[in-house]
């Protein structure tokens, strides 16, 4: 019997069907060696979150989908040379934001300046998981919350969105938004102040209900 010449490249990175339980980093290493299954698992894991972010940045669904395609096509093309410092999640957000911003800027250049609606949203919706009885009372609060959120700047909303809904650290948010870490921290802190001062009454009201339920 003959032996094939052993080739001493990277160790074989196995991704089986249970790949869905593997860490991002493991999948990423596998993807870099050309493993399509690992790449598709990463895609499936992150696409909804990036899409959600894209839709908050621009309400143009087709454009957001285009950018997603662009992002993942580029990743595959450059897989061998990609070096990721930090989490995969962060890297995807950073790259995706850059693509989105380029596209938005390009679109603005060619669009008619007079458009009724702002194209960038970053809108909040309250999360009311409470019972139906409470909902009516909450609609009232919802309007109040909504108006307070409208008073926030786009940057404030984006920072909150990235930090609180997308598992990014303060450092990562700073890098994604191309800001300094302490600026992000201050920005978010200020935003919370604004929201809290507007929501003071509501918070107090809810406090009494929740105290009984949760503790």
């Amino acid at each position: 019997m003959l032996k094939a010449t052993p080739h001493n490249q990277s160790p074989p990175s196995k991704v089986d069907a249970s790949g869905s339980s593997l860490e991002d980093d493991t999948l990423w290493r596998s993807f870099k060696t050309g493993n399509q299954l690992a790449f598709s698992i990463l895609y499936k894991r992150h696409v909804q979150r990036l899409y959600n972010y894209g839709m908050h940045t621009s309400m143009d669904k087709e454009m957001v989908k285009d950018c997603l395609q662009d992002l993942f096509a580029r990743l595959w093309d450059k897989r061998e040379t990609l070096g990721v410092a930090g989490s995969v999640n962060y890297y995807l957000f950073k790259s995706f934001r850059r693509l989105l911003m380029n596209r938005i800027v390009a679109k603005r250049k060619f669009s008619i300046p007079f458009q009724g609606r702002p194209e960038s949203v970053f809108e909040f919706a309250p999360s009311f998981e409470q019972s139906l009885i409470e909902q009516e009372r909450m609609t009232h609060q919802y309007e109040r919350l909504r108006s307070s959120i409208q008073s926030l700047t786009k940057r404030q909303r984006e920072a909150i969105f990235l930090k609180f809904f997308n598992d990014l650290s303060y450092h990562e948010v700073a890098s994604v938004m191309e800001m300094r870490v302490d600026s992000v921290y201050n920005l978010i802190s200020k935003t919370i102040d604004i929201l809290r001062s507007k929501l003071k009454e509501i918070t107090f009201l809810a406090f009494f209900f929740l105290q009984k339920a949760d503790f």
Partner: protein
Amino acid sequence: MGDYYHFSVNDFVMDEYFQAWVWKPTDENSAFWRDWLSHHPDKAENVEKAREMLKKLNFPKYSLSDQEVAEVWNTIQNQEQRQEVAPHKTSLSYGWYSAASVLFIFCAAYFFISQKNNRVEFETAFGETRSILLPDSSTVILNANSQITYATDWDNQSIREVWLQGEAFFEVRHKQNDQPFKVTVDDGVAVEVLGTSFNVYHRTAQTKVVLNTGQIRMSLPNEKREDVKIMMKPGDLVEVKSKKYSKRQVDANLYIAWTQNKLILDYTSLGQIIQMLKDNYGIEVQVERPELLNQTVSGSIPMPKPESSVEQIAKAFQLTITKQDDTYILTE
């Protein structure tokens, strides 16, 4: 973590460990915060305000349907092919350009028509593998020189069915409603599953199915009675040839090594390797003496380019290559 005592409501809101407790409570962080609160009851109000703040924060959520997730992915794969073709364009004559555009229109039209019938079809060329997301976001890795067809409206059907020619690896998502998933190859052999991963090979009247995880049921056509059903466990290989089947245990990872652009050999005969080169790359290889076909080899060979893989294989078997027209001939 002593300084939590001096935390304002804002500080709590912004603290990652605090956020984790509110949004992703675990036994560990819940225990910590309960304990902390029991030692600092005077801080309960601040903590509760911060909790409430975090709970109230929310954005509307936009999401893609499973089908859209699949569509975006499958378009990425199209772009990828176009880009790989791109570098050759400069050397193409105008004739080729027009031929290519006619072909493109033809393909687009075909795609449109098949879309209209709610069916999509993907095909790979020699030497090309591609991953496809199905409408339920199950993954298929289609090996070279293969074809897969499926309906796009699985939600309205009792079964998720795909038709395969060639070879593919499937990673099937289990649906909550237990909708079965079925792979059919053209001689009526079928694999039926709920959610699992397996490899199906069907070329030239031979079918091989290898199960990686989960459990599957294979059915074979039978003129006399009902179809023959075979239950498979992980690591089982079922081989069907001229309506007879055999089952044995194998290392399932060897059979999906191709999904990682590798050829993993485990006492694999030269004859099998030559068949693989023909199946996946359209490469014809002949040997000087037929006895050579029974020699076996073990190890792993990366498969970046088909030509170099012939060289590597020749090296492994200590044979020399000569080329006649499009055929490689291996001699001692």
